[in-house]
């Protein structure tokens, strides 16, 4: 277990090497928040109401800041995995006494964690400067941090799964594209689930995507113990499902590797 922790740590440290890129990513956060703060201010202004679907303007903006923080920290490890599969490199990883998918999971988390912290900081600064309000509570923050960690875990698990699918489908980027768009929509990245029509809200409630973007952000702006507990339970459940799925998929993949030689 510790070995994987070390993989995570090494991956996190490698982020420092890419610090120029990280800096540029911050700019995209600033731009995104800038645009949406303006958009929502206008939307609220035009509607003439104090609350839309139960969100005040400040809460709406902070909600967005949180979902965007998570989304900007999501994993790209599927690229590394799918390229390794295509290059036939994967067979060599079997020579090490480590489980490849869990190695990549640790790698992915190590990659996401520093980016998450940086994105969170940037978003917090931009929004506080922008609307001069903080629409969250300390309890909400704690809940957010915990749930965002689980969210990134879910995202990394999905990324690993997408990467492994390269064994069967040539191009995995469409799969990632679909996943990302689902995060944006039924995941509640752009609009909180409260704004969905009832039927869509119910469907989204069962899907894994909202456990990645919607629930941590919601917990921050509207902390409520019951909601937090239910959401965490959902996140954990999906994590277990994904781990099982990865284990099964990897067993199949390994069989192909050791028979066909990658």
């Amino acid at each position, binding site marked *: 277990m510790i070995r994987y922790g070390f993989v995570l740590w*090494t991956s996190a440290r490698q982020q420092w*090497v*890419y610090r120029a890129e990280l800096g540029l990513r911050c700019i995209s956060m600033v731009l995104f928040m800038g645009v949406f703060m303006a958009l929502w201010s206008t939307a609220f202004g035009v509607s003439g109401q104090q609350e839309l679907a139960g969100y005040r303007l400040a809460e709406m903006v902070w909600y967005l800041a949180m979902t965007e923080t998570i989304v900007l920290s999501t994993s790209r490890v599927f690229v590394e995995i799918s390229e390794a599969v295509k290059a036939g*490199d994967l067979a060599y990883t079997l*020579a090490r*006494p480590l489980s490849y998918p869990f190695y990549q999971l640790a790698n992915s988390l190590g990659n996401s964690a520093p980016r998450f912290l940086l994105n969170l900081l940037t978003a917090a600064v931009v929004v506080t400067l922008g609307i001069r309000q903080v629409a969250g509570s300390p309890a909400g923050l704690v809940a957010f941090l915990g749930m965002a960690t689980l969210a990134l875990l879910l995202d990394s698990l999905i990324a690993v799964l997408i990467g492994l699918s390269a064994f069967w489908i040539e191009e995995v980027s469409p799969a990632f594209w679909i996943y990302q768009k689902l995060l944006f929509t039924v995941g509640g990245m752009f609009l909180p689930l409260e704004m969905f029509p009832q039927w869509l809200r119910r469907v989204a409630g069962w899907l894994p995507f909202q456990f990645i973007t919607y629930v941590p952000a919601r917990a921050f702006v509207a902390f409520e113990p019951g909601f937090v507990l239910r959401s965490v339970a959902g996140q954990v459940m999906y994590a277990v499902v994904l781990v099982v799925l990865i284990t099964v998929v990897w067993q199949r993949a390994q069989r192909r590797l050791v028979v066909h*030689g990658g």
Partner: protein
Amino acid sequence: MTTIQVEGLTKTFITREKQPGLRGSMRALFRPLRRETPAVKDITFTVEEGERVAFIGPNGAGKSTTIKMLVGILHPTSGQALVLGKVPWRERARLAYDIGAVFGQKSQLWYHLPPADSFDLLARIYEVERATYRQRLDYLVELFEIGDHLQVPVRKLSLGERMRCEIAASLLHHPRILFLDEPTIGLDVVVKQRIRDLILELNQQEGVTIFLTSHDAGDVEVLCKRAMVINHGEVIYDGRVSTLRRDYIHAKTVSLKLGEPWQGFDGPGVEVLKHTGYGVKLKVDTTVAPIEEVVGRLLAQYSIADITVDNPPMEEIIARIYTRRNA
């Protein structure tokens, strides 16, 4: 003590063939054409502890396939093998702790980080105790002379420097066997020599069994006492390198870049393979004319800008082995 025992090892790859065109794609979807490619055919050999064995052959001969089976990352179609008493493809994870593997074309070091970080990570992965690791690292750093490269990101190292770090990395957990798959590929002559020397020293100091594959006969001459020549999946020669050299490597090629036009060379056993402008390629039959003598005379006769002396290509050595066999 026998470290590697192979008996009747066979590997046949089954690939799906797709014929060109839309018709071909459709057919491949419903009734794929299966082609069997035998890569390794019924090979048998034993390797003792501390031996230095070279497994040489041309590209596609089955060298990498054999090593992959011995490391356990490929399942054979039939046959048996025991590495350190374990069946590699069944006990791969456990075996991994006792063997080291360097695959010439694949790096195990993290590209953007210095080798020191990769070493630390590998030490953890292989569960090497901190104290042991420190000592081991110091020893390997000194042996492979990589002290100056430890903190430089791997992407900034030259191929030769990287290779030395790769080999050092594969030895951190003190394996009993070191598998090297084409370790000197892409390296220039001087660097190749250095790496061969280092591996030799390692074997002499620690008694690590060395199993090396290469398509460069030069790797064999210096480093290994025993050579197995493999061609089309079959071992066609298994014996001492000195015997191989004596019986089958009878020629050297000399490539020259002259500072003046070529005017021929007077002497037995020297054949001009080709000459264009100021470049000349000669084949010297070393049973008739010792190479030092020929080179010496060439240097005296011509002004030479560049000279390279090479072993005959693998294909030629193999051709000779076949001829001998059939004779």
